[in-house]
């Protein structure tokens, strides 16, 4: 035996050397073969959210490629499973189930429409799987959901609306008439804007709620008081074109109030569409200016190139395919938020999901960078909601031109909930 040690045979040396080489190669080998992180994406591929869904998918694929090209998350490759929820709350909860239980995803993200979020979040809470929504609804920060549901990629509608009021009151007028769809989205605008504009010394002098099934609006326009200085409109869906066209016919070439709207009305719609001429000179809220502003940040060009959008906000392969630019960045930023929290928490697998949520709750300042092309953000771990800057753009020559940017602070409001005190 000792003879063997003192006088190694050639075969023994080869074996030992081979084993040594294998051992040295092992860590690299393991890293290359590491099980991928699987992220489930609840996608509005069909149903009323399909136009948004198409761009959410493209943006997410672009972010995924960027992250994997840079080494993945904590050295592990990332893969994303997209599952259509038909923009329906019932199917939404089934999709959360499928992605988590059948497909074994580490977490679920990506939901936009509020009612799908409301329908799916209870199931995510039951399955104890992190559920990161990109919805801009106030539902997360209001406390209506649970410890597992977070919104780290987009400012909620309450903050968005509140930041618009000071600018509207100072620049467009103090007597506001609101026209809004008569359901949750419209009611958020009605409630938050009315309060915010009153704080600025302005007044909402009429609130005109339009049933969501309405297809013609002419009978509502006579309800707009003559002394109206600002007409605040947030109609959505296919009715937008009719609404704007009929509004133009109503006012004709005579005096009209200043118009202010939310670009949600015109996401995926070309502002130069015939029939929308009446919007010329009017203002819109935008989260992320569709037309590249002259003072755009240093990462704007790289982000646009990655998601395949030109300087006008249209697809580089089809100028008629307008993006949902003011919302889709949220999926990109959410994916980078996941990366940051997973790396901070040392996430290894589903057993670490609670640790992952705690790491997310511990995140606060999110500086501007390629991870956050829309702008710097501040995440509130207690309310699970992120806050960012907002923009106001004016339609000039059929294009949206950015004229104002708010600060993060303008959108902050008192906490309505502390999710960190809730049990998992």
């Amino acid at each position, binding site marked *: 035996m000792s003879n063997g040690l003192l006088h190694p045979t050639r075969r023994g040396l080869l074996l030992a050397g081979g084993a040594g080489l294998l051992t040295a190669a092992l860590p690299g080998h393991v890293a290359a073969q590491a099980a991928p992180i699987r992220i489930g994406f609840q996608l509005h*591929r*069909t149903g009323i959210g399909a136009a948004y869904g198409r761009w959410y998918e493209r943006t997410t694929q672009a972010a995924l490629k960027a992250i994997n090209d840079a080494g993945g998350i904590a050295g592990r490759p990332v893969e994303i499973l997209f*599952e*259509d929820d*038909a923009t*329906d*709350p*019932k199917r939404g*909860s*089934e999709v959360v*189930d*499928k992605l988590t*239980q*059948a497909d074994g995803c580490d977490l679920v993200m990506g939901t936009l429409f*509020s*009612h799908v979020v*409301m*329908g799916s*979040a*209870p*199931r995510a809470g*039951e399955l104890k799987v992190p559920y990161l929504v990109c919805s801009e*609804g106030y*539902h997360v920060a209001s406390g*209506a*959901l*649970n410890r597992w549901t977070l919104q780290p990629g987009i400012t909620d509608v309450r903050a968005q609306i509140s930041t618009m009021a000071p600018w509207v009151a100072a620049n467009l007028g103090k007597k506001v008439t609101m026209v809004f769809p*008569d*359901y*949750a*989205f419209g*009611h958020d605008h009605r409630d938050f804007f009315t309060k915010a504009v009153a704080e600025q010394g302005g007044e909402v002098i009429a609130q005109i709620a339009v*049933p*969501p*099934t309405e297809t013609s609006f002419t009978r509502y326009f006579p309800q707009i008081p003559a002394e109206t200085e600002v007409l605040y409109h947030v109609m959505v869906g296919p009715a937008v074109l009719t609404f704007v066209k009929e509004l133009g016919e109503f006012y004709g070439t005579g005096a009209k109030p200043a118009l202010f709207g939310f670009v949600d009305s015109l996401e995926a719609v070309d502002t130069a569409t015939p029939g929308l001429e009446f919007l010329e000179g009017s203002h819109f809220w935008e989260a992320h200016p569709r037309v590249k502003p002259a003072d755009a940040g240093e990462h704007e060009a790289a982000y646009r190139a990655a998601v395949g959008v030109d300087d006008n906000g249209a697809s580089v392969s089809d100028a008629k395919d307008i993006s949902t630019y003011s919302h889709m960045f949220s999926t990109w930023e959410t994916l980078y938020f996941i990366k940051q929290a997973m790396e901070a928490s040392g996430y290894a697998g589903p057993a670490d999901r609670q640790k992952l949520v705690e790491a997310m709750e511990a995140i606060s300042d999110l500086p501007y960078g390629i991870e956050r092309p829309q702008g710097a953000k501040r995440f509130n771990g207690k309310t699970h909601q992120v806050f960012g800057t907002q923009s106001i753009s004016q339609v000039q020559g059929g294009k949206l031109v950015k004229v104002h940017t708010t600060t993060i602070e303008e959108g902050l409001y008192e906490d309505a909930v502390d999710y960190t005190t809730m049990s998992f």
Partner: protein
Amino acid sequence: MRRNGLRVWALHLALLAVLASAQFWLSPYLATNLARIMVLAVFAMGYNLAFGYTGLLSLGHALLLAAGMYAAGLPALLWGWSAGPAFIAGLAGGGLVAAVLGLLALRTAGVSFMIVTLMFAQAGFLTLLYFAPVTRGNDGFAVAAASRSFLGFDLSTDTPRFLAAFAIFATGLLVSLALMRSPFGRTMIAMRENEERSRMLGYNPFTVKLAALTLSGLYAGAAGAAYALLFGYVGASFATIQYSILPMLYVLMGGAGTTLGPFLGALLMFALVEAATGLTTAHQFIIGAALVALVLFAPKGILGTVRERWAKWLP
């Protein structure tokens, strides 16, 4: 007859035995979905009582589903009711709304009945949106954990949820089977087959149809309440036309006027969606094509065709 009776009960009890044991041999994912399917099948069984057996082609059953869902969900949200009373409220809500709907809509028949029920359902949907401060409108609301407990069991966990869904389904199935074997069940079928002749024989079509629609509403109400309490969400989307069409599809696929058809339809529809979404992003095309094929080649649905060709004893 007696032999058929034994065969029928044995078939139904065997199905229930298989379903009861399913939670032990299915994956948690499939077991949860089976619970969903059983709840939706209760809705479809109710639809089948009205459409399959009595011949009332309604396009307004979403209203009845939503009535049960909100009658159970709102007391839970506003006053913190627990699952037991909330479920009973949902059951009653579905039945009551169906009775009122019937009093008004049953003055019409055929296509007019379809349109009137559709209009009522649409009015119900808009009412939910209009009273958004109470109903939470389009967004809906999550049912609090405290309201999702029944006799100390947490209905948001797998086993109690499955058992609750199974209990409601089994009750619904056995009641509908007993009903179809009862004289009243035969009167319902008589209304479907020939209303004038039934009237001549001394039956009052209005009261029979009203009773059938109310029963149907009880089923829909039970399903709506069960969905709210077992899956924790209440929302106006359940009052949209889509949820009037779904039970019709389940019933047509499984076999209208068969006791097991609604469950089979709900099960196959789920399987079809699962299979199609795994194959292509154009999954709705596959589902549509499958439904068209079904209507072309088996217009009586699967169990309707089986009954016609091989098993005339199927109820």
